[in-house]
C-alpha cells in the first residue's frame, strides 16, 4: 500500500485539479461578474509583467540572432537571418519564454497570495461575508492570466524581433523596413495563429495551477512557501507539456 502512495496522491491531486477546473468553468459563466476585480488583476498580471517579459524577449531576439549568425555565415545564408530568427521567435521561443517568465512571476505570486489568504483564513471570512471567494479571487485571476499572456506574447515577439533587428545590425547592415519585409514575407498564418492560440492555454494553465496551489495550501506559512514553489514548478512543466500537445495538434490539423 505504501508503494502506491505517490501514485495515489498523484491521482487524487489530478482529480482535485480537475474539480477545481470544472468549478472554475461553472463559476465563470454565472453572475455576478467581478469586472472591476478582473480589470485590476489584468493590470497587475498583464501590464506589470510587461517590463520583465519585454526585456526577456528583447534579449532572446538579440542573442538568438547573434548565436545563429556564425552558423548561417558558414552556410553562406546570412541574408536568411531575419527569416530564421522570426520563425523561431514567433513559433516557439516567444510564446514559451514569455510563458515561463509569466509562470515564474504570476504563478508564484498567485500561490503565495492565495495561500497566505487561505492560511490566515481570509478566504473563509470572505465566504462568511457573502462574497464568493472563488469567483472573486480565482476566476478573475485565471481569466486575467488567460487573456494577458497572449497580449504579452505578442508584445514580447515584437520586442524580440526588434532586438533581432539590432542584432543583425551589429555585424551587417539592414534597414528596419527590409528586415520586417523579410519577416512578414516568411511568416504565414500557420506560424502566427497556432502560436498565439497556444498562449491562451499557457495562460490558463499558469493561472489555474497558481490559484489551485494557493487555494488549497495548508500547514501555515510553510504551506504558503510550498504552494508558491510548486505552483511555479508545475506550471512551467505544464507549459512544456501543452507546447508538446500544441505542436502535435497543429501537425495533425496540417497547420504546421
Amino acid at each position, binding site marked *: 500500500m505504501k508503494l502506491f502512495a505517490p501514485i495515489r496522491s498523484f491521482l487524487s491531486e489530478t482529480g482535485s485539479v480537475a474539480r477545481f477546473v470544472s468549478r472554475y468553468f461553472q463559476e465563470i459563466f454565472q453572475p455576478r461578474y467581478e469586472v472591476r476585480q478582473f*480589470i*485590476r488583476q*489584468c*493590470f497587475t498580471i*498583464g*501590464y506589470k509583467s*510587461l517590463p520583465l517579459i519585454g526585456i526577456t524577449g528583447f534579449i532572446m531576439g538579440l542573442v538568438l540572432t547573434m548565436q545563429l549568425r556564425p552558423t548561417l555565415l558558414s552556410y553562406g*545564408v546570412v541574408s536568411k537571418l531575419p527569416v530564421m530568427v522570426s520563425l523561431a521567435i514567433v513559433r516557439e521561443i516567444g510564446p514559451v519564454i514569455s510563458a515561463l517568465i509569466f509562470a515564474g512571476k504570476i504563478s508564484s505570486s498567485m500561490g503565495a497570495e492565495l495561500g497566505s489568504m487561505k492560511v490566515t483564513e481570509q478566504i473563509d471570512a470572505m465566504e462568511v461575508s457573502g462574497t464568493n471567494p472563488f469567483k472573486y479571487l480565482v476566476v478573475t485571476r485565471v481569466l486575467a492570466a488567460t487573456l494577458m499572456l*497572449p*497580449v*504579452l506574447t*505578442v*508584445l514580447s*515577439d*515584437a520586442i524580440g524581433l526588434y532586438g533581432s533587428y539590432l542584432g543583425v545590425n551589429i555585424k551587417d547592415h539592414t534597414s528596419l523596413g527590409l528586415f520586417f519585409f523579410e519577416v*512578414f*514575407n516568411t*511568416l*504565414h*498564418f500557420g*506560424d*502566427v495563429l497556432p502560436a*498565439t492560440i497556444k498562449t491562451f492555454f499557457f495562460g490558463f494553465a499558469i493561472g489555474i495551477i497558481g490559484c489551485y496551489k494557493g487555494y488549497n495550501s495548508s500547514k501555515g506559512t510553510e504551506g504558503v512557501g510550498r504552494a508558491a514553489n510548486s505552483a511555479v514548478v508545475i506550471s512551467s512543466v505544464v507549459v512544456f507539456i501543452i507546447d508538446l500537445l500544441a505542436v502535435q495538434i497543429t501537425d495533425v490539423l496540417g497547420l504546421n
Partner: protein
Amino acid sequence: MAKDTINNVKLGLFISSAVAILIISLYLIGRNQNFFGSNFYLRARFSNINGLIAGNNVRFSGIQVGTVDKIRVIDDTTVEVTLIIDKSMKPYIHKNSTAAIGNDGLMGNKVINITPNKIASPVIEEDGLLFTRKAPYTDEMIEKLSSTNNNVEVLSFKLVNTVDQLNNSKALWSILNDTTIPVNLKLSINNIKEASIKINELMDVIHEIAKDLHEGRGTAGMLLKDEKAATDIKQAIANIDKASQESVTAIAAIDSVVQQLHEDMFYGKGAVHTLLRDTQFVSRLNHSMDNIEKGTAAFSEDMEALKHNALTRGYFKKQAKKTKSVK
C-alpha cells in the same frame, strides 16, 4: 479611484497595442498570401510541377503579383495550378503570356514566373488558362551535366594521350632545348623590325611622291596635272599621226620607184640591166679581159726587149741609179 482610472488607461494602452500589433502582423501576412484585397484567379497546366506547393509566390516579369492557391491533378499527365493574382496587375497580363516553374534562388522555394510575350494579344480574362513553358528542371540539368562530364572524361583522356605524345616527341624537345632558336628568333625579329622601319621610310617616300604627283610637281606630276603639257602632247601625237600618214604616201612613192627600178633592172635596157643580166656582155667582157692580159704580157716582153736594146739601155740604168740614191 483616480489611480484605478490611470491603471485602466495603462491597461487599455497595453492591450490595444498588443492587439494592434497582432492585427497588423496578420494583415501583412495575409496580404502576402492574398487573403485581403481584390484578386482574380488564373490557371496554368503543367506536366510536372516539381514540388510546387500552395502558397508559393507568383511573379510577373520578376514582380511579386500573387500566390499559388491550389493544385489539383486533372489526369495522369496534367496538373492544374490555380493562381491568385493581384487585380491591379490584370491589364498587364496578356493571353499569350507564359507561365513557368522556377526556383527562388539556388535553394529557395519554387516560384511561378509569368513572362509577357512581345507579340500583341488581348488581356487575359478571369480564370483564364495561361500557356506554360517547361523550365529547365534540376534533374534534367544534372542529366545534362552528367553527359557533359562524360565528354570531359573523353577529352581529358585524349589530352593525356596528346601530352604523352608531345612528351615523347624528340623533334619537339630538340626544338624546345635548342638554345640558338631564341637568339635566331630575336635576330629575325630585329630584322623584321629594321625591315619595317625601312618599309616605313619607303612608305614616306611613296607618300612624298604621291603628294608631288597630286600637286603636279615633277615630270610625272606635270604629265598628270599640267593641262598645257597635255595639249602639247596631244599636238605632238597629232603631228606624229600626220607624219605617219605622210610617210604612208612617201612609202607608196618609194614603193613605186622601187617597182620601176626592179622592172628596169630586169627588163630594161640601161647599163645596170646589161651589167646584171646580159650574159653575152659578160662573155665579151671576159674575152676583152683576156685580150688585155695577152696585150699586157706582150707589152712586158717588149719592155724587157727595150731594156736590153742598146739604144734604150742607158736610160734604164739611169733610172736604177736614181732609185738607189733615193733609198
